[in-house]
């Protein structure tokens, strides 16, 4: 399916995003919120960071949930090596299972070990085919991330890129990131309810999710409300 958007419109849209992100304080706040969302989405993560680049690929706005992440990020650009730069160059997710054993970016890995970070996951933010930044999560122990976390981060990167594209100004990115944060909290409640139903009925994740959906439909209740009942035990309807 080919997009109908002309090259001109595309250039204008990307330029708009980049201009918006150069408006420093508001953009930094918005990006910081995104980093926070990333950390909350991936429970194994001890820290997260987001970097946005200008049209020349230079990092312009960065935010991280803690100073170690920020320092390690900056180091990548100084050394010219690291998972985020490779994620950027290859437009693909990069996973470091154990910084102590990584040979791809030896200098950077050494620093990561010294900082106490064991695993990293980094993925580019792609808006309409153009990279506008990168998002990454770190964990103190090795082997913290699996395909599941890769999938979650990819999901978030897709949402974040769309959000950046849809926003008219940095304030709006901040508001949209806040919606994402609340959506995430609700999502966790739904997934907990699904987990309870899986165990209760000895069924797989998909069947449990379908059961929850079928029951909300039958009872004409919002999914979140029913999920909260199941997860909270208080008024557990014993589905």
């Amino acid at each position: 399916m080919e997009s109908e958007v002309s090259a001109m419109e595309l250039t204008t849209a990307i330029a708009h995003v980049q201009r918006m992100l150069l408006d420093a304080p508001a953009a930094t706040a918005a990006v910081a919120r995104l980093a926070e969302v990333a950390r909350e989405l991936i429970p194994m993560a001890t820290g997260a960071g987001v970097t946005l680049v200008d049209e020349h690929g230079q990092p312009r706005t960065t935010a991280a949930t803690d100073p170690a992440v920020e320092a390690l990020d900056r180091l990548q650009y100084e050394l010219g090596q690291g998972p985020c730069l490779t994620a950027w160059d290859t437009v693909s997710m990069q996973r470091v299972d154990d910084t102590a054993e990584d040979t791809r970016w030896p200098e950077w890995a050494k620093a990561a070990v010294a900082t106490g970070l064991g695993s990293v996951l980094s993925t580019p933010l792609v808006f309409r085919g153009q990279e506008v930044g990168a998002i990454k999560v770190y964990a103190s122990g090795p082997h913290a991330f699996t395909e599941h976390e890769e999938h979650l981060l990819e999901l978030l990167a897709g949402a974040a890129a769309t959000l950046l594209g849809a926003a008219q100004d940095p304030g709006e990115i901040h508001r949209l990131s806040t919606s994402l944060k609340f959506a995430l909290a609700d999502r966790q409640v739904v997934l907990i309810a699904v987990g309870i139903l899986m165990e209760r009925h000895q069924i797989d994740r998909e069947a449990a999710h379908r059961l929850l959906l079928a029951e909300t439909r039958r009872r004409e209740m919002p999914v979140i409300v029913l999920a909260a009942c199941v997860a909270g035990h208080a008024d557990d309807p014993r589905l």
Partner: protein
Amino acid sequence: MPVADEATIARVQACGLATVLEAAGVELDGLWLQYFRLGGDLGVMEVEAYLHHALVLPALQRDLLACACNELAEGHPRRAPYAADCSPAGEAGAG
């Protein structure tokens, strides 16, 4: 075989979904966020491709999108259909 195949059901569901989205003025980003909230696993791009019949999503994801749409379009007379509504065998048609 009276049971419609998966691709046909997906097409009917996607059509119904698109109709309600348009009638209720729900945008793709809003739909995706609600779908994500309900535990949906796919990205915005996949959802968009599904709406344009370029991708057949698994039944659970299609039903989550229908549910997300209907929750957002509350009070709207038209409802996005679930997979069970589109299969001639109805809800009992498992197997």
